[in-house]
């Protein structure tokens, strides 16, 4: 019961928060929502199914570019959203195939390479993506005649989408699928021997994680209104992975906390930005050594010791 109350209070706070913020603050909160959605997907792939992926920003890019192109062509937002998610789902499925052949570090490089490929295509195929000049004037979404042009309205739409995606993820994780993913992570050979179709679930872990990034990408494109290849580079994928790990891989609220550390704190500590990232990097090393379960495992650890 207290859990639900805490959750409701958290949601209420997120709804009310823009009232006390300036434009840039609302923008950052919206960006936080985008990263949380993408992070939830990555958490499914990495944290729950145990497949390492360094290509999440690539999917974010595919979602954002496809949304920008479709929206500029006049396709309604409610059609663009599932279309982009589906596109990422299919690409994620294709990327999952190398994951069937190789494990761990090879997979890390394969996904990293995929991200680099997306970046190169975005930079070089000017006719489609505008190259380094990017795509301009991406419209804010229009749903049932209501245009979410105001940044606070758009933030509320994004928040609602984030909560819906979170609810979907919670449902998925409680379903037999969630247990199959965990089995895949904890002991793939044993999972196979008790009759779990590891091929199918590995592919699904990638595809669903990618679809979440696709949804995040659509909102990202609408949020910033202008996209170029830079926010979809390899280094962003690495930050996203570290975000999931820092919050606590395989913990439901891990990405939400991780996105605070990766997206919000650097902005508030802007005066020390280079050093903030430097400290963040070393903190990750220290965390892997002393607290491999992420920040959210801290309460358990403290309780375990006491």
């Amino acid at each position: 019961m207290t859990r639900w109350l805490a959750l409701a209070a958290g949601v209420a706070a997120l709804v009310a928060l823009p009232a006390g913020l300036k434009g840039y603050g609302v923008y950052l909160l919206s960006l936080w929502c985008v990263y949380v959605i993408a992070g939830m997907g990555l958490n499914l792939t990495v944290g729950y199914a145990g497949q390492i992926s360094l290509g999440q920003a690539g999917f974010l890019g595919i979602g954002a570019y496809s949304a920008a192109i479709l929206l500029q062509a006049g396709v309604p937002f409610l059609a663009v959203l599932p279309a982009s998610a589906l596109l990422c789902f299919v690409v994620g499925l294709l990327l999952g195939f190398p994951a069937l052949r190789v494990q761990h570090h090879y997979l890390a490089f394969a996904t990293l390479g995929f991200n680099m490929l997306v970046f190169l295509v975005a930079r070089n195929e000017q006719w489609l993506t505008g190259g380094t000049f990017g795509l301009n004037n991406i419209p804010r979404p229009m749903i049932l005649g209501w245009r979410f042009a105001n940044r606070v309205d758009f933030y509320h739409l994004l928040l609602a989408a984030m909560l819906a995606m979170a609810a979907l993820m919670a449902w998925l994780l409680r379903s037999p699928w969630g247990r199959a993913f965990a089995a895949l992570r904890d002991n793939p050979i044993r999972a196979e021997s008790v009759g779990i179709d590891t091929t199918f679930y590995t592919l699904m872990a990638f595809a669903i994680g990618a679809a979440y990034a696709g949804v995040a990408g659509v909102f990202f494109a609408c949020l910033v209104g202008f996209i170029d290849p830079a926010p979809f580079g390899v280094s962003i994928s690495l930050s996203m992975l570290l975000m999931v790990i820092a919050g606590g891989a395989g913990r439901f609220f891990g990405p939400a906390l991780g996105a605070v550390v990766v997206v919000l704190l650097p902005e508030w500590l802007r005066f020390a930005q280079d050093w903030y990232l430097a400290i963040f990097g070393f903190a990750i090393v220290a965390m892997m050594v002393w607290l491999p379960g992420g920040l959210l495992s801290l309460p358990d650890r403290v309780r375990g010791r006491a």
Partner: protein
Amino acid sequence: MTDLLQLIVAGTATGGCYALAALGFTLLWQASGTINFALGEMVMLPAFAMLFLLNVAGLPLPLAFLATCALAMAVLGAGFKRVVVDPLIRHGVVPLVIATLGLSIGVKQAVRGVASAEVFTFPSVFSDTLWNIGGLRVSAADIGTVLLACAVVAALQAFLSRTLTGRAMQAVAQNRDAARVLGINVQRMVLYAFLANALLATLAALLITPVYLAKFDMGETLGMKAFYAAIIGGFNNSRGALLGGVIVGVLENLVGAYISSGYKEGVALLLFLVVIIFRPQGLLGTVEERRV
């Protein structure tokens, strides 16, 4: 035709540098199962250390190189092993991958904070003579780099297969427990691999920085190319690293010149994908068993 040959020579030289970094990578993998994502930064750091010794402390290049070698062995070799790898290695590959990713970001940004995001020039160890061989213009730096890379690979091979220490290192790579039973000091052999990795990275820095220039993020692409070179050639084979590095270096040059300069950086990736799909153990590698 001369254009083609010239591109191949220059590509081989770049590939030689990739190979040196890749060699360190395969050594660490063989000795301890460490996947080092901060590899590029381990080339970048010695480059900046040498620049500091050259410009601020006023040392001549050979002396700066030797001092940096000693420093790199202490910090990037022994220090890295003791502080990062030793506590993490028993948890498996993935935590170490993440820790070295964090390390890579931390080191990069710290260097940016100290030395700014500017690009620094770096003196070449070779003279800038151009030789004209039958219409083919080759620089002394290219030839020197290729020869040095080949010499290092040959020396490493000789060390690993001819000396007692080298053979002990190979024994550790093949079967830790058996090596321990035979009275080999496993931790010491692993430490040697880390020291060799630090030396190779410093040497790669010396050769490649005059071309790449010193910048805080110079390790990003370099590290990635080295990984791909290592995997293409064969993760568990030292000669494979050289072969992989040279293939990547040459093909990159050819693609850049004849097909599309925009996709030059995608070459290593494409080769890598082909290799992991058709020959996951790499061109010269041997198959590793799946462990339960």
